């Protein structure tokens, strides 16, 4: 401990109460303990709040806040630690106390997925990348807040002239900005198909023929799906052209 260099184990007589306790056994204990208790070598006795030693008042001179024990600062002195019993302590389950059990089970009971896109599934673009990479971090928004407080007005006709663009595609470096991440494929159908195909293979000859038929139908379905996609693309292009006019 710091400051122990001034302390050494020696004579404690000067710190013993001038009126020792009545029981002889206790005085014996005092003498036995004098050798083990430390005392200050700078010659100064322990000082209480009023600057006087109060050993003559009580052996428990540190208990300043209890009634029946003389207080160094007077009867109206209240020590900082003198408070009533505290109802809520760490010995109580505070989560239960504040009614947060449901929230606790919701967040800690189930597995919370790591990526940000699981929290915001409807947001387009790549949002799982760190904000520092493209300068879109919230921290930079706090450190360098944008200009606020000005009124927002709709643009007039002449002001919109500045937004007249040239036709054609944008440079390649800017094309990736509005690309979407690949959509998560649902594997349920594939599992069912695999299971169904396995059971059909194990069935026998009759099931083998039915399996072949299933394969044929699958191929037909694939062709149909690709044709549908091409038709959709054509329709979308037409809609864009007609919608712009």
């Amino acid at each position: 401990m710091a400051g122990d260099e001034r302390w050494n184990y020696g004579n404690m007589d000067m710190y013993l109460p001038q009126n020792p306790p009545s029981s002889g056994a206790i005085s014996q204990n005092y003498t036995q303990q004098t050798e083990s208790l430390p005392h200050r070598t700078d010659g100064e006795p322990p000082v209480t709040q009023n600057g006087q030693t109060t050993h003559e008042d009580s052996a428990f001179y540190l208990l300043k806040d209890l009634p029946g024990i003389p207080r160094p600062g007077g009867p109206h002195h209240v020590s900082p630690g003198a408070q009533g019993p505290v109802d809520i302590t760490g010995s109580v389950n505070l989560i239960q106390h504040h009614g947060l059990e449901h929230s606790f089970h919701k967040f800690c009971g189930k597995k919370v997925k790591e990526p940000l896109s699981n929290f915001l599934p409807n947001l387009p673009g790549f949002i799982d990348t760190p904000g520092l990479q493209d300068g879109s971090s919230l921290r930079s928004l706090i450190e360098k807040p944008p200009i606020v407080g000005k009124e927002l007005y709709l643009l007039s006709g002449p002001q919109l002239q500045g937004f007249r663009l040239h036709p054609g595609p944008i440079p390649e470096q800017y094309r990736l900005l509005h690309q979407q991440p690949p959509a998560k494929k649902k594997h349920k159908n594939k599992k069912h198909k695999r299971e169904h195909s396995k059971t059909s293979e194990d069935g026998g000859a009759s099931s083998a023929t039915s399996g072949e038929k299933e394969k044929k139908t699958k191929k037909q379905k694939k062709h149909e799906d690709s044709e549908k996609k091409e038709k959709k693309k054509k329709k979308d292009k037409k809609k864009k052209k007609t919608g712009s006019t």
Partner: protein
Amino acid sequence: MAEKLEQLEQHLEQFIENTRQMGIIVSDFQPQGQPVLNQKIHAMITGMQEIDRCKGQLQDVQVPLEVFEYIDQGRNPQLYTKDCMEKSLAKNEQVKGKIDALKKFRSQLILELDKVFPEEIAKYKAAREMVKEEHS
């Protein structure tokens, strides 16, 4: 409060969707798309006005700064809530352990002191009971 937050969320999603559509138009711009682009710019400005109006209703909403670090790293902010809950539970258990240890120490200390200083401990116990009566 939840309604106001939902309203803000809706405005933000509409704004983001509008911006996305503008990006598609601009990526391969055609002259026929100019009026649509102008319309999208207007929608963007009105979106910003609506979001600006929402801020007055959410002045008392407080967000801890540590959540921003999670979001900037591309992590789910619910993980922050989860980490807070787990830390508070661990701290609660730690403090409970300390309290239990100190209670045991106190009872043991009083027991031993009672053997050495019976009169003083009797005074102490009487004083403690007086304090309890005062506070009750």
